[in-house]
């Protein structure tokens, strides 16, 4: 049984070494769709961070009381409840963004990261480390998606956060607004990271 990691180690691990998106391409389903606008990405990620952290925390607190056989059901219930709360709050305070996000907020429930961390970490660890782990994972995830959005929005719409930043004569690359643009951007980014920083990729490969 390896020595339990310190808080900051867990944090760093989640943020870079184990970065869910770049290393394992996990959980991109729900958020990749909205990365064509930076503000949508931010709101979506805030929702995800809240859900992951709170779910991890709750699952960890209840870990000694949850019967083995029904733990998946319990985790699903907990995660779904937090997602509903996020959905209601976004709908109440940011109605236009809520409409733009559509069903993707609800899809945080099936986001592999949320369930993955509950299963892999939270159910075996104490509340605070679980919370930190959730925070790190979701922030690492958010960082990657923000970078993607920063590439997609200016190229696709010519704006950033709604403010025009490209010169007047710029013809928007509409492909960036649509699905292929997202796939290419993330793919190229993942390629770049894995090529430039292979050491961690090697360590990761051993672990998987």
């Amino acid at each position, binding site marked *: 049984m390896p020595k339990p990691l310190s808080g900051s180690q867990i944090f760093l691990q989640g943020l870079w070494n184990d970065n869910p998106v770049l290393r394992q391409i996990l959980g991109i389903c729900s958020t990749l769709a909205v990365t064509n606008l930076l503000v949508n990405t931010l709101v979506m990620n805030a929702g995800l961070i809240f859900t992951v952290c709170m779910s991890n925390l709750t699952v960890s607190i209840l870990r000694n009381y949850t019967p083995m056989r029904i733990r998946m059901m319990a985790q699903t219930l907990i995660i779904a*409840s937090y997602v509903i709360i996020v959905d209601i709050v976004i709908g109440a305070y940011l109605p236009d963004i809520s409409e733009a996000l559509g069903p993707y907020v609800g899809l945080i429930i099936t986001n592999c990261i949320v369930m993955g961390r509950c299963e892999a970490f939270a159910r075996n660890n104490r509340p605070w480390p679980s919370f930190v782990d959730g925070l790190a994972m979701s922030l690492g995830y958010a960082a990657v998606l923000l970078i993607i959005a920063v590439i997609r929005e200016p190229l696709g719409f010519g704006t950033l956060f709604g403010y025009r930043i490209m010169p007047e004569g710029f013809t928007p690359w509409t492909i960036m607004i649509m699905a292929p643009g997202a*796939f290419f951007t993330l793919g190229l980014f993942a390629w770049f990271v894995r090529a430039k920083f292979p050491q961690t990729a090697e360590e990761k490969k051993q672990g998987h």
Partner: protein
Amino acid sequence: MVQVDAGTLLFAAIFTNNILLTNFLGLCPFLAISREIRSALGLGVAVVFVMTCTAVLNYLAYYYVLLPLNLDHFRYIVFIIIIAAFVQLVEMMVERFFPALYYILGIFLPLITVNCAILGASLFLIIREYTLVQSLAYGAGSGIGWMVAIIAVGAIREKVQKSAKLPKGLEGPALTLIITGIMALAFTAFSGMIQIQ
């Protein structure tokens, strides 16, 4: 309320509005399993079945139970429970009647539950206010579309990894994403095909 007839919707859900290539849903198992075509096919068929049935079940649950009781904000929980229960049922059936397939698919069968595409299809059909028949067509079409995408990209990836010498870092997820991007690009060509009356 929507003008599109079920047949067109089925076609559109497979090609022009492919739930994976256009709506980004269902990528996780996609990236993991698209190694062997046979297992991809088996998984694909299972997904089609689950997606079609849960689309209908969730439609009924939403319009006949949740809305009348003013509990529509619980739809996320109810939908995922219905999906989980149904997948459990399918798992039991496959184990009983197709044991070979059961061993091939292994863990991927219960993982269908958390496949974003399944929940996504149900959520989309509510937002777009489809009728029951349209939901059926949309569910089936989305499932078939997902299957087509996963098999196509998997086949290409297998071929590329066998025959090409790849640059450092490209192997694995990065390659899959780029291939998916090209496929998504190709599928947008279909968007000109849909004609109404």
